[in-house]
């Protein structure tokens, strides 16, 4: 017997030993009883052992690196809180983007945790099950660190106190909420494509990379730290997403049309949700990093272009309506911000009109659209404010049945006309904001005809009462503090006091 033992196994061997061979064949239950959701979506898998994990992360290494990330993160958070980091923000308006993040995005991390836990239980292959379980833990870590981090801002600023309650009720938060509800109520393969591929791989860079870089630029040490700590897991999630799609397409040619339909659907759903981020980047970051348009060009047109070229070998095409989404990038943030400005009385964050300097930046970044379509609107509203006639829209808007966004978007190529589509289902008429959303409705009318649409629910008397005030109280908004304009808000008053104190010290 030779005594020359190899000191250490290679990464590939270690990975194989710690992930494979852990599964077993059920003996007293059928496989289909153990994995009851594995077949109804029509996906055909012939050989799960062909699954490749590009990141060969084993559980022991996972704990080691995650613990290191947590130690770094919490050291920064402690230091931020101890040193009154909130006073170092570029401007108090910035904090509104973070209110939207906590109420709109952090709960999605929790939803992703639940979704991946479900997939980690119900996918029959052991490789993807291990990866989905790790991702499920990551997502739980993300929501916890975000709540923990942002609890510091809750000590000083309004709008943070009821984020989970608001996420489940507030009209505009139904947009991200319903996106994830939709994904989690799909089958496990669709969920994997929806969140793992379309959302994580194709779209989340747009949220976590330029926006978090913006947080760094605006002095928000706390958010940038949890943002990049979360994002360090994201690269693994993205890789899982791309592996899922390649695996499904390699396993059986019949999978292609099913996968293509999911890619089309979830690209469009994700594009609609990320309109909130477009607005955060173009309007809510006092110091700008890049425009939504520029971010779209880098992360969708360029990175997505290379990706879909790579996937073309399987016959997969660029998502349907990608061209429409790309054209909309010149309008999206302006149309969304205008909507929130008009409905500031019903939002749990503050709004404002862009300053003349900010409008010049928007003109420069959106040379073909801003001066022509959006600047005149803001200038008119500024005039009205000066005359003491600040414009509030008091009509409850019609919502798109699929994305749940008020029907404010315009026709492709015709920014003067609101886009409006309808479908019939069992004798009822359903409304959609775009061809993308209408296609999704028509694909699964039984599902979307059951949407919990906030405006419909208000009219049906399910949201606390008949007046706007009743509804806002049901949302648990502190009226006069959480909502309305930035100017005159308690947040602004507090900030002005801090800045005045700083001036006094500086002499």
């Amino acid at each position, binding site marked *: 017997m030779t005594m020359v033992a190899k000191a250490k196994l*290679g*990464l*590939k061997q270690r990975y194989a030993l710690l992930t494979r061979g852990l599964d077993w064949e059920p003996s007293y239950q059928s496989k289909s009883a153990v994995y009851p959701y594995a077949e109804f979506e029509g996906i055909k898998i012939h050989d799960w052992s062909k699954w490749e994990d*590009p*990141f*060969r*992360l084993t559980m022991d*290494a996972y704990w080691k*690196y995650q613990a*290191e*990330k947590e130690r*770094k993160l919490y050291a920064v958070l402690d230091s931020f809180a101890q040193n009154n980091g909130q006073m170092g923000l570029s401007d108090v308006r910035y904090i509104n983007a973070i209110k939207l993040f906590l109420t709109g995005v952090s709960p999605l991390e929790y939803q992703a945790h639940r979704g991946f836990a479900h997939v980690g239980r119900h996918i029959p292959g052991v490789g993807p099950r291990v990866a989905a379980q790790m991702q499920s833990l990551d997502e739980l870590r993300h929501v916890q660190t975000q709540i923990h981090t942002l609890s510091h801002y809750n000590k000083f600023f309004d709008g943070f106190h009821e984020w989970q309650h608001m996420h489940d009720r507030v009209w505009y938060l139904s947009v991200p909420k319903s996106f994830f509800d939709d994904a989690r109520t799909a089958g496990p393969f669709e969920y994997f494509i929806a969140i793992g591929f379309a959302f994580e791989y194709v779209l989340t*860079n747009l949220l*976590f*990379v*330029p926006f*978090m*870089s*913006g947080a*760094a*630029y605006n002095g928000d040490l706390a958010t*940038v730290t949890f943002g*990049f700590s979360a*994002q*360090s897991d*994201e*690269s*693994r999630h*993205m*890789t899982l997403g*791309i592996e899922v799609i390649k695996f499904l397409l390699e396993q059986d040619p019949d999978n292609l049309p099913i996968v293509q339909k999911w890619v089309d659907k979830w690209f469009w759903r994700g594009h609609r949700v990320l309109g909130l981020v477009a607005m955060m980047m173009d309007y809510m970051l006092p110091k700008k*990093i*890049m425009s939504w348009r520029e971010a779209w060009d880098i992360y969708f047109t*360029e*990175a997505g*272009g*290379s*990706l879909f*070229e*790579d996937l073309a*070998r399987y016959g997969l095409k660029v998502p349907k309506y990608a061209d429409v989404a790309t054209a909309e990038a010149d309008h999206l943030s302006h149309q969304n911000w205008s909507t929130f400005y008009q409905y500031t009385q019903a939002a749990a964050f503050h709004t404002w009109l862009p300053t003349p300097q900010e409008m010049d930046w928007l003109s420069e970044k959106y040379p073909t659209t801003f001066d022509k379509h959006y600047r005149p609107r803001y200038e008119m509203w500024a005039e009205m404010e000066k005359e003491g006639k600040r414009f509030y829209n008091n009509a409850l808007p019609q919502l798109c049945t699929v994305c749940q966004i008020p029907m404010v978007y315009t026709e492709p190529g015709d920014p003067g006309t609101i886009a409006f589509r309808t479908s019939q289902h069992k004798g009822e008429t359903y409304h959609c904001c775009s061809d993308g959303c209408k296609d999704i409705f028509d694909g699964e009318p039984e599902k979307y005809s059951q949407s919990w649409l906030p405006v419909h629910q208000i009219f049906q008397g399910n949201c606390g009462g008949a007046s706007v005030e009743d509804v806002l109280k049901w949302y648990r908004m502190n009226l006069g503090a959480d909502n309305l304009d930035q100017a005159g808000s308690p947040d602004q008053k507090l900030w002005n006091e801090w800045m005045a104190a700083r001036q006094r010290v500086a002499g």
Partner: protein
Amino acid sequence: MPRIVSITLQNTDAARPIIEAITEDNPGAVVHSFPGIVKIDREGSLTVHRASVESRIGRDWDPQELHLSIVSMAGNVDEDDDYFGLAWAH
């Protein structure tokens, strides 16, 4: 259309030697700096070599330590004991 692979790392003390190793070992790599992050793009492929990072930091370095600094990437991953690679197929 050029097929760009990309890696984005935090702009931190731990990541800077990795950024340096990438730019030195991958001719034609283009570095974009944003607040807090550095995005490195290259046509076709990009590799981080263990030895190159180790020679800069003077200690053992496991390519999996990238997990502590990575923010995003584009391309198919190939990971082993001595390198971390990104490439588009063919």
